[in-house]
């Protein structure tokens, strides 16, 4: 996967992963992918809901290690 930007949100608690993700996605172009790394266990449903509402797409997640990884494709 072609990742345009990676956001390290590990160690951060709610609401910071989502606040930082919102800031980070501004820095990439439509169609590009943002990788978000987080340790907050709520991040999964938070990011899923947020991408759905804000027009982006959560294309993949990796929960196999302590650091959760999410790939978000920027929408219009």
């Amino acid at each position: 996967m072609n990742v345009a930007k990676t956001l390290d949100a590990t160690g951060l608690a709610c609401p910071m992963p989502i606040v930082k993700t919102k800031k980070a996605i501004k820095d990439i172009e439509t169609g590009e992918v943002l990788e978000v790394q987080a340790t907050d266990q709520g991040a999964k449903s938070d990011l899923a809901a947020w991408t759905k509402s804000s027009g982006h797409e959560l294309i993949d997640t990796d929960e196999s290690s302590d650091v959760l990884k999410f790939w978000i494709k920027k929408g219009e």
Partner: protein
Amino acid sequence: MSEERKKTNIILFSGDYDKAMAAYIIANGAAAYDHDVTIFHTFWGLNALRKDDKMLVDNKSTIEKLFGRMMPRGAKRMGISKMNFGGFGQKMIKDVMKKHNAMPVEDLIEMAQEQDIQLIACTMTMDLLGLKKEELIDDIVYGGVAAYIGEGEDGAINLFI
């Protein structure tokens, strides 16, 4: 994202640290959702907006001075709503928050201002509690019930905390 921006409006009535924390976490989350967010501070919630430093303000009655001294100056000094035990509970919560990397309320307020969340101070209750504009943090809006209704009438989320 093309449709009109949604609105989240929160009335912060409580002067409890934990309740203010909930209010400000929701507010910051909503701002990340691109909502226009307003927090309307009334009664004890106004204390979250107080400046840290002690200040002498002219033209205060004895009762107003007393209120000023008895109420916490800023979120940092607010107690928690349960098990506060004279401030000990608040210290415990703060320790735990640090351990879990949760942001203190004072930082959440700063973050809210960075995210252009509108902070409104209710002027009627400011008068009741004797709080003056110079005692509150900068870049806030002063208003009354109409200011809240104006935002709240088309709010997607309206909360009273």
